[in-house]
């Protein structure tokens, strides 16, 4: 694990902590909505992985873009999607990020550079490569990041995308959130190497392993690769070692986890890590933290209540947005 000891400025820490709490609060509420049948189909929570979303998003600049996965609520909020757009979308409401058409697995907001969450494992990687091509051709100095799980590193699109990005020297960062499980399978059952990052050597690009529970650490390591990419030196593969505290989706209770594993990882809760560091550095105390958390929880509840009362799209919407007319 790469460790980087440089503390970020207090304000950045504060922002990151707040964002992680927002993601956590939103997802806990979403789980409830799913059980209440207000969210249909499935949801994939990133509880435990918030430092990944937040640490990476903090590196991004205006014009930078992202593609991510069905486990994308955290990415979306970290990129700047509003809680309202997210919650309304979760319930399929017209005021949702995608007018209710996308749902939990497709959080998308072009206005903030979030080019789409994808429900097909690995399909978001080629799309990110194309967005980075635009940046290179238009010489914007922007980069694209794309998130995927360690399970996705076994699919063809992963390989093709890293190769294409490497040969075209595109400003794209491939960010693997290795949360140890792909659905109900521990990574070692499907992946014959310890670190996904070693696969970078197949493309002659940097591959690094980072502590994905430490938002500051994520920020520093991703920053370095982002700078490199902005300078035109090409893509990188960054593996964030992390853990999902909940099951894969919906009602999965994760019986496949070895006893005690979750408990060990709970000690490395990304919110806890940053919080304690801030307390140690005198930037936060327990009361302030609790107040922050409660106020965020209250906001989330408010937004959820608002979203519940929002209208569904009219049925004519079915036939809109298929083709662009004009």
């Amino acid at each position, binding site marked *: 694990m790469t460790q980087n000891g440089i503390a970020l400025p207090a304000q950045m820490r504060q922002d990151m902590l707040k964002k992680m709490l927002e993601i956590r609060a939103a997802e806990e509420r979403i789980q409830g909505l799913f059980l209440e049948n207000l969210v*249909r*189909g*499935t949801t994939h929570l990133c509880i435990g992985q918030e430092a990944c979303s937040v640490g990476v998003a903090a590196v991004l600049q205006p014009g930078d873009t992202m593609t991510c996965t069905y486990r994308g609520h955290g990415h979306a909020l970290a990129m700047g999607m509003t809680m309202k757009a997210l919650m309304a979308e979760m319930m*399929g*409401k*017209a005021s*949702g990020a*995608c*007018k*209710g*058409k*996308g*749902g*939990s*697995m*497709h959080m998308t907001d072009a206005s903030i550079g979030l080019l789409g969450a*994808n*429900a*097909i*494992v*690995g399909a978001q990687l080629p799309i990110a490569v194309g967005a980075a091509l635009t940046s290179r051709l238009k010489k914007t100095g922007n980069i694209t990041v794309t998130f995927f799980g360690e*399970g*996705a590193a*076994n*699919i*063809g699109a992963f390989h093709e995308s890293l190769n294409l990005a490497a040969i075209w020297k595109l400003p794209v960062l491939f960010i693997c959130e290795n949360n140890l499980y*792909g*659905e*109900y*399978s521990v990574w070692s*059952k*499907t*992946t014959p190497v310890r670190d996904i990052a070693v696969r970078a050597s197949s493309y002659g690009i940097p591959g690094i392993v980072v502590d994905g529970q430490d938002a500051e650490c994520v920020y520093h390591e991703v920053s370095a690769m982002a700078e490199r990419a902005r300078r035109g030196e090409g893509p990188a593969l960054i593996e964030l070692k992390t853990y999902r505290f909940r099951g894969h989706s919906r009602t999965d209770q994760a019986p*496949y986890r070895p006893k005690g594993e979750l408990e060990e990882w709970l000690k490395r809760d990304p919110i806890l890590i940053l919080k304690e560091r801030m307390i140690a550095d005198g930037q936060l105390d327990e009361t302030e933290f609790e107040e922050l958390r409660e106020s965020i929880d209250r906001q989330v509840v408010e937004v959820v209540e608002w979203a519940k009362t929002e209208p*569904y*799209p009219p*049925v004519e*919407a*079915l*036939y809109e947005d*298929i083709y662009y007319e004009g």
Partner: protein
Amino acid sequence: MIKLTYRDAVRRALADALRADENVIFFGEDVAEAGGVFKVTPGLYEEFGGERVMDTPISEEAFIGAALGAAITGMRPVAELMFADFVPVAMDQIANQIAKYRYMSGGQFIVPLTIRAAQGAGAGFGTQHSQCVESWLLNIPGIKIVVPGTVKDMYGLLRTAIDDNNPVIVLEHKVLYNYAEEIDEAELTHVPLGKAAVRRVGKDITVVATQLMMHRSLDAAERLAGEGIDCEVIDLRTMIPLDEETILESIAKTGRLVIVEEAPHAGGWGADIAALAADKGIYWLDAPVKRVNMGGALIAYSPPLEDEVVPNVSRIADAIRAVMRA
């Protein structure tokens, strides 16, 4: 008499096939230790062991292609693609390899493999996890396509598919997994491919449908019986080979035809049935052949949109009434 679900029927067919022939093997993502994402296959791994029931990495092209390699060398593999929407990920192996392998070699191989996948809308999984895919696979000679709509068919068609010396794609409708029938266990036997079933005998109009649409068509028929319209409802059961005879006999009797597809209109499988009627059935037709389907729409996540896009009993009944009036 026992009560059996469509889900149980899949599991039982797989278990019986694994018991009947030691060359039968079964693999897919999370099908073994976890028992499948739709909880269709629990216990198979425990009963038949890890050499015959295997989990795969997320790499559909590789494991579907591996099924082909195993089939031509003496095994009788069954591969699960999980959501049928992932068919395109493995499409080259299906369309260019599996379907053509026997032919290109001049008949040197048999290709006894089965691909199972869950299709269909209605469960809130959104645009990329709700499609029916048979219409993407029709124009590929060399494969057979099976679409079971009842518990007995699910069992019997899957058994026949696995015993068939040709590649068969078995599409299970995910909304039917909980559908149950009271049956005599002795009725759980092989069902031949290429034989449609007349689910309701009627004299006024022929309705051709499959899976969920077949059940809704039966409901529509009951509703219309009260209005004096006597529908004959045909369940195709297999798309390839197609039972032209049963369809034509019915049209000869009724002179009217409605086709109900869970698919977009352009290129939907119903066009083939309508084309058959326009060719060999033309002199019997007393009215336009109508297709009830998803028109030009895609499947949206939002509950009212998803509920609207899939033909429901009212829309089916309306179409039948319209053809009766014509």
